[in-house]
């Protein structure tokens, strides 16, 4: 037997979802990897929202995945802005991933408050296709604030986080990207292989393993595109490649 309070709350919830549904359809950017695009309810990445990417700092895979996202969002013509903490982005490497540096503005923000301020200011600028922020110490309030700004302007925010703290519900998608080992020695040496986990996705329920979907994708240096090596969703969870620690 539902109490009047809980019925009221349920009604409000319905209204909230209705409100979301009534919002104008966001611009969707396809990632160009058919298996991943198909797994996303929008058929790609929705714009005007926050997307989170996590991964260890000593691993370039998460940076590479973010670069790919930015390259797709920029579509080669629209400018993007990257807020970095260490100023270690290397333009020739970015260019190889399709992000042409002449479309990129790099901002170096040393303090946490400056980083969030910069991201917020940049999100208000509708001329930008996307804003990428390397963030640390994201709080619920800040995440909510950025989400509102992004929704208002339609600019997509990608937050690259190296500290894998708790996720915030504000992000529409949350990805965890790490490098993966390649077993056969015959492969082209310059290809990169990543394990991409779609950890959270609005509108999708994640399984017991703690992710919605998992792929093993490979970036082919020769052609500059991606191929899905294995769709790991339905496979038994393989132990992640372990790293040797001292």
């Amino acid at each position, binding site marked *: 037997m539902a109490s009047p309070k809980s019925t009221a709350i349920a009604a409000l919830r319905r209204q909230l979802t209705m409100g979301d549904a009534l919002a104008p359809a966001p611009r969707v950017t396809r990632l160009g990897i058919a298996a991943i695009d198909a797994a996303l309810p929008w058929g790609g990445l929705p714009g005007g929202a926050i997307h989170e990417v996590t991964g260890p700092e000593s691993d*370039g895979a998460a940076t590479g995945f973010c670069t790919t996202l930015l390259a797709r969002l920029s579509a080669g013509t629209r400018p993007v802005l990257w807020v970095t903490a260490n100023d*270690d982005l290397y333009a020739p490497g970015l260019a190889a991933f399709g992000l042409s540096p002449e479309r990129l503005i790099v901002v170096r923000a040393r303090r946490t408050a400056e980083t969030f301020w910069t991201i917020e200011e940049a999100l208000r600028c509708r001329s930008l296709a996307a804003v990428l922020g390397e963030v640390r110490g994201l709080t619920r309030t800040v995440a909510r604030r950025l989400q509102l700004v992004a929704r208002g302007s339609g600019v997509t925010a990608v937050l690259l986080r190296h500290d894998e703290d708790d996720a915030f519900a504000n992000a529409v998608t949350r990805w965890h990207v790490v490098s993966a080992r390649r077993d056969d020695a015959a492969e082209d040496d310059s290809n990169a292989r990543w394990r991409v986990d779609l950890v959270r996705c609005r509108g999708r329920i994640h399984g017991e393993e703690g992710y919605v979907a998992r792929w093993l994708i490979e970036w082919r240096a020769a052609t500059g595109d991606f191929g899905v090596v294995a769709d790991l969703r339905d496979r038994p969870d393989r132990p992640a490649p372990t790293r040797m620690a*001292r």
Partner: protein
Amino acid sequence: MWLPTFATDRIVRRRPEWRAKPLATITAAAGACRIAAVNRAGQDCGIAPGMTLADARALVPDLVAVTATPTEDGHALTRLAEWCMRYTPWVAVDATNLDGGALWLDVTGCAHLFGGEGRLLRDLEARLAAFGFAARAAVADTPGAAWAWARFAVLRTADDGIVPPGMHRARIAELPVAGLRLAPDLVETLHSLGLRRIGDLYPIPRAALAARFGRFVLHRLDQALGTMPEPISPLAEPPAQQAVLAFPEPIITAAGIAAAVQRLVENLCDTLAQQALGARRLVLSCYRSDGRIASRTIGTSAPTRDPAHLFRLFREHLGEIDPGFGIDVMALAATEVAPLAPSQASLGPASDATAHELTHLVDVLGTRLGHAQVRRLAARASHIPERAVARVSAGTAPAAPEWPVGERPLRLLPHPEPIDVTAPVPDGPPLQFVWRRRTHRVARAMGPERICGEWWRDDAKLRDYYHVEDNAGCRFWVYREDLYRPDRAARWYLHGLFA
């Protein structure tokens, strides 16, 4: 403007109780203490610069003597000159330095802002008197005439200090020849020949004057009469454009300052629009009533004259301006301008608006974080990895650059980090390495790619780069510095991360 007792006035400012006493500064020269400067009370008692201290003490036993500080006096005079920029941007310190201190102010075209030359002089003298500086100011067509008038004319009111346009030749004729900025021995020579007034020199043939007294006297006479130009090099380069706002009452509130800045920005943008210019660098100077100047500088990435945008950039800094006891005058100067064609409301595609929005964002970020932190990456012709990318101003989009061939990492560490490496053969790729206290076992390695240092640089060292992948799949860019030498351990560095 002449400050006859600048050095002693500075001392009295610190020690007001000495105001009425005879006061002198002394320098030790040729084995004797000599008077360098003396205040009004001392002059009345007959003390003059150049006397020995003993002679002066004989005249006035209670003379207060202080060691002269010419360097500090010079700095103080420069500060006073900066303060005088409230009247005109063209201010210079007089270098002739014969007596006391003197400043040049070119008030051409500025006097009307203060209600005419007379009111400007009155205002200047009143403010200086409030600071404790005795000043004699004169306005004339030439610097030479103004110099003579400030020193030797009878100035009862400030209006007496004005030599009307075109009248300087007649007016200074009555003044003593010392008004020509001549050394004392030259003045002595002229006096001994009965040439006491400047006017006495007018009828003498120029050739005779030059032959008799050297070219210097003729030179100074020509400068005073305006037949020879006398350029004055200002303290700071006068700004290309400037807007000034003087307040009837000193303003002190943040809202007042903001409103004033808004008006200044609008005025300046109007002027810039008339001349088809855009500002690249703006300096806001607040002249406080206690004589200090608070100033803030902003820069823009592209020339602009959009008042709303410029005001937004200044708003970041308004909180840092300390109004003290109030601000009398605010000046906004465009110190760097660039041509900017008149804009037109766009009918075509919105690309123009997009570019504007982006430059505005770049300016806002640069104002807060520093313009060096907002950058674009451009290619530079160098095969040294860290030198191949230049950080350029974000204001203008660089042309599509050509990037170096070869595999390059996504992140390049600002400084290569030393790593401990185990390598099976001395000049082969590493087998395992320790980076940031973590051991990475190398699963595969590609390379080496040999990059030689640029021979014209001192730190030119050869590097052998390897692209290594550890057994977790992470890929790194490591290099060994220098060629293998059996007598020395190889030095390895980690330089970048691949995706």
